[in-house]
């Protein structure tokens, strides 16, 4: 049975419908990616899953339990770690304090092992554990955000654009760690990415979103070979530069 089941959710920003009937599944131990352009609603899906936004329709189930509309801290306690877009570390807290906050929902357990585990994945953080997170570089902040989510010992990790703003080598490093996390920590991952190439490389299954809808889903191998995906998301489209065919009066039935 799927670990996470999202059924037909509709979420609004005020009066604006940001996602319109999205359904998806993440299996235990699987990596599932959601692709799409900026503003297609990918982040909104993650926010709805983790409870930061309430869907007006539809349900979110975690391991058979309905978690729709729970507060995000409750969802986190149930084992969903969230690495938000733009990293969102606590800038005035030190690296270690950031990680301690990450373990907040776990009852007074000894988390020094977990700290060591995080520092093992990200040795760069160990060197800077006493520094305020605001002074870290973008890549280090991304590592810290992932590490902070790991402190929850999550069963499902929501990863929002982990490669955003990172140099390509760093992005590849992060991708490698994500792949390792799945096998070593046996957690499922729901990955939202613009860097489709990287996402498709490490994921099992992919969904493609456009303006709040899922327009395509398939295994990643098949997605990688689909012409639409190649054109729009992998930048392989062979398009004429200028002088495309067009009518002066464009279509107006929108």
């Amino acid at each position, binding site marked *: 049975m799927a670990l996470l089941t999202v059924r037909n959710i509709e979420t609004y920003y*005020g*009066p*604006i*419908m940001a996602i319109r009937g999205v359904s998806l599944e993440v299996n235990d131990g699987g990596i599932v990616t959601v692709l799409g*352009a*900026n*503003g*297609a609603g990918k982040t909104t899906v993650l926010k709805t899953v983790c409870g930061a936004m309430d869907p007006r329709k539809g349900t979110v189930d975690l391991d058979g339990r309905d978690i729709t509309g729970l507060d995000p801290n409750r969802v986190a306690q149930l084992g969903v770690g969230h690495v938000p877009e733009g990293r969102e570390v606590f800038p005035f807290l030190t690296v270690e304090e950031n990680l301690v906050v990450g373990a907040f929902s776990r009852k007074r357990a000894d988390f020094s092992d977990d700290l060591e585990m995080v520092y093992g994945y990200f040795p760069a953080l160990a060197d800077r554990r006493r520094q305020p997170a605001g002074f870290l570089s*973008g890549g280090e902040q991304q590592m810290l955000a992932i590490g902070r989510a790991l402190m929850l010992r999550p069963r499902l990790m929501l990863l929002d654009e982990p490669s*955003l*703003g*990172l*140099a*390509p080598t760093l*992005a*590849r490093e992060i991708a490698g760690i994500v792949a390792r996390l799945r096998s070593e920590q046996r957690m499922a991952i729901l990955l939202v990415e*613009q*860097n489709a*190439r*990287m996402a498709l490389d490490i994921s099992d299954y992919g969904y493609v979103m*456009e*303006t709040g809808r899922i327009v395509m889903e398939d295994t990643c191998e098949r997605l990688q070979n689909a012409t639409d995906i190649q054109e*729009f998301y992998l*930048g392989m*489209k062979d*398009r004429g*530069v*200028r002088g*495309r065919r*067009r009518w002066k009066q*464009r279509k*107006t039935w*929108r």
Partner: protein
Amino acid sequence: MDSDQAALFEARNLSLSFGGVRAVRDVSFEIRRGEVFSIIGPNGAGKTTVFNLINRIYDADEGTMRFNGTEMSRVPGHRVAELGITRTFQNTELFDRATVLDNLLIGRHVHRRTNIVAEFLFLPTVRRQEIAFRSYAERIIDLLELQGSRDQMVGALPYGTRKIVEIARALCAEPELLLLDEPSSGLNPEETEDLSFWIEDISADLGVTIAMVEHDMNLVTAVSNRVMAMADGAAITTGTPAEVQDHPEVLRAYLGD
């Protein structure tokens, strides 16, 4: 476009640091009259910061900017629109509690010729000005097909429409140079294609020079005359879209392989 055409805007050796991080390093470029000039690069490469420098939201630590031959590195922010440069913002910065029409009319603000006393009394000059503003705004509404949302509150519009309203507002000031900050973000491929037509119309019908920061390489290739690629705050190369896309450093920094 031939390469010796006059530059409308010229930036020389712009640099800017935020608390030790060099967001923009020694960037020089020019925007030629009538062209569509795109800046590409990974997130955090400093593209939007360049716009914020042109727009005078930030003071450059070093470097100069000339627009139409006028030195503008120290011009106050509100004068930039008067000079003839208006812009849109990455996540749209509209006046949410006003109608689309009012937003466009604020775009006309630089053309205001009345004083507050006349406005209190709503003298005939003010009335004539309002009607003139309105008819110009209607021209832009027609151009960008915003008739349907004219009287709606901007805050309640869908994201795609908001992006277009922001372009319309910037156009209402009759700029010579229009800066578009990621105009296609949040638009679906179809809307992005429409956007590319509109950019062409704005360029052709209104004769406005356009500079844009953009991620969507299809859009960039479709509409740009010249492209500048940036990474880590520095300009890597400038050239035609095809040249830039094939530049080895760009491939490495941006496309990733």
